[in-house]
């Protein structure tokens, strides 16, 4: 693999991500696995499509790793995010953080997923039985007016 942060159009292998942070002085490896959910507030998702600005997304994932290193100097982080068409239960993202003690690994892992949702240029499109919609674009464009599909966000 050669690097700890990547975007892939192939199914993610959890063990590959975990292996990147496995080391002798770790007492904990926390893994977060983000998967495709079928129902959101009662609305059924058929499948998702993820798109990324790959070069920048990988840079931003790495930047999250640097931020984690500043906050938790002993943490090692690896993150993989998938793009393309994903079916229900498929894995969209895998985060692995190893630290000497468990509390830091939980916190750093949570930090990573929250930052992904803020700064990494990746988008998902929900496909429903009655339509499709890019998620993330309704909040700013339709201030105060729920756009079609908002209920399912």
């Amino acid at each position, binding site marked *: 693999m050669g690097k700890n942060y990547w975007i892939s159009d192939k199914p993610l292998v959890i063990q590959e991500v975990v292996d990147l942070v496995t080391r002798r002085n770790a007492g904990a490896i926390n893994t977060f696995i983000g998967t495709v959910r079928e129902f959101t507030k009662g609305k059924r998702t058929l499948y998702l499509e993820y*798109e990324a600005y790959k070069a920048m997304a990988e840079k931003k994932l790495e930047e999250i790793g640097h931020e984690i290193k500043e906050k938790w100097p002993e943490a090692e982080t690896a993150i993989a995010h998938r793009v393309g068409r994903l079916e229900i239960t498929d894995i969209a993202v895998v985060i692995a953080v190893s630290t000497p003690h468990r509390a830091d690994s939980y916190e750093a892992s949570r930090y990573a997923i929250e930052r*992904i*949702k803020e700064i*990494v*240029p990746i988008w998902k499109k929900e496909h429903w039985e009655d339509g499709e919609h*890019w998620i*993330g*674009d309704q909040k700013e464009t339709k201030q105060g007016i729920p756009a079609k599909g908002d209920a399912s966000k």
Partner: protein
Amino acid sequence: MNQILFFAGLREQAGEESIELDVNGRSIGELKQTLSSRYAIDKVKESMAAVNEEFVQDEEIIKEGDTIAFIPPVSGG
């Protein structure tokens, strides 16, 4: 010349993944204005911008050869 990239809903509105424009010396804010008024790509107004893969503000001045990407609100994870 500058390459301008569009993603997700913005790409669909633009009908293109990328276009080439000479916007050397213009600001990101001015480019947003041009894209929305002349090309009817008004979703750029709600998008963040990146120059050469780094986020920038509207005041950023574009240089020759810069790649500009418009980043609609993200939804990864």
